[in-house]
């Protein structure tokens, strides 16, 4: 991933900033730039999520993609944030076997991965059990 591609998403990845439709109040994370419900009459604006939610489903990753090999085994989950949107993220700082459907989690700022030995380090959100 070239640096600009990562850099332009930094507010979203570092601070969990999504978007909210000013017309219907629906919150989106990952951000959307058109509200699928209101379409042209929708008005999307940045919206910061509080970073708390619960696990909807999870898996323990044993075979990792490039750049994630040093993190296995890691828990990957779909998390439903309290404001409604769902996202995919790792659940970290715990034995991955402790993660369950329904577990309460909150966001933490972590190193996500690195591109090769000399490539940029990517930071962003993971979640921890609360």
């Amino acid at each position, binding site marked *: 991933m070239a640096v600009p591609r990562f850099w332009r998403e930094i507010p979203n990845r570092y601070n969990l900033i999504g978007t909210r439709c000013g017309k219907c109040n629906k919150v989106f994370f990952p951000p959307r730039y058109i509200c699928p419900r209101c379409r042209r009459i929708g008005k999307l604006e940045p919206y910061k999520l509080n970073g708390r939610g619960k696990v909807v*489903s999870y*898996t323990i990753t044993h075979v990792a*993609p490039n750049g994630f090999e040093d*993190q296995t085994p890691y828990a990957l989950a779909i998390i439903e944030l309290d404001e409604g949107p769902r996202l*995919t993220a790792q659940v970290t700082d715990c034995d991955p076997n402790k993660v369950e459907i329904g577990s309460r989690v909150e966001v933490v700022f972590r190193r996500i991965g690195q591109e090769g030995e000399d490539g940029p380090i990517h930071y962003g959100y993971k979640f921890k059990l609360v």
Partner: protein
Amino acid sequence: MRKVAVIGVGLTKFGELWDVSFRQMIIEAGARAIEDAKIDGKLIDAMYVGNMSAGQFISQEHIASLIADHAGLIPMPCTRVEAACASGGLALRQAVITVASGIHDIVVAAGIEKMTDVMTEQTTEALATAADQEWEAFVGATFPGIYALMARRHMYEFGTTEEQLAKVAVKNHHNACFNPCAQYQMEITVEDVLNSAPVNTPLKLLDCSPITDGAACVILAPAEMAKKFTDTPVLITGTGQASDTISLHDRPTLTGLAATTNAAEIAYKMAGVGPRDIDLAEVHDCFTIAEIMAIEDLGFCKKGEGGKVTEQGETAIGGRIPINTSGGLKGKGHPVGATGIAQAAEIVLQLRGEAGKRQIYGAEIGLTHNVGGSGGTAVVHVFKRGD
């Protein structure tokens, strides 16, 4: 709208085909289809090719030109279509629409993927590009990981077991033993699956379809012309396609694919049939959980009962609704762009009564179901034995 018939099918062997190239594979499948249809290649008016990622797998884009050129069919128009693992099904649908519209008469729908010319890690990375790169792959999600999230939730909501998932792989390997084109003509047991290496819990290595080279072609003609070429035309009576969110996390349910349900509804309606009328189906079992969800979403059983009916043998050859008689993606292999076309070829062979030891006797109506990514695209076709 004209009625559309399949007049010829052709497949390469599926597997790790180190001694043949991309261009040799597509020519071999094409030549077999032309031979099967008993037509002169010069009669072909147009071609659609399903291919997910030649750019990443063999560093070659513009494969439509390459194929028309090396098949000796210049200046026939050739078009590549892409929807990840549903590319083949989409190519078939484009070919059906083209013939039905009257724009062209004889149209080839092909699919091809050459996956073993790069190292395994690169193959996995290329496949992951069917997921959302920014918000799924970026955080460490792989394709097995995304399907594992569906499997875990299916187990949680419906009590589906790892043994039931394993039964899908065991059945499809068994079926593949009777398919000379299949990558894995070998039996496996439930224990083999359960004891295979974990990939993404609850999915293990033998829950996953393999990396495969392969190509497949079907040749279409207007139904009224089909009898000129073959005594056993097979009609394509329904075609349906639907889109869904590219990311799994954006969907309200994780235990089924809305794209499948939506595409099937359109295809069933067009064909004037329902799930009970289907004699056999080829469904997209990229992972064992995917077959269980597919048979539910296509209406072959109630939601949540896919694991149970699989365990009871209802989806085996000789069962109530045989699924993946070819061996499916799991046993036959999954050259992603070719899969949707290979599914169609299997149904055509079955409806003609030419499926050898895996033949479903008396089959009249069959269905194919091809999925792109984690369900962002689904394509369903209904086939009927011609008179």
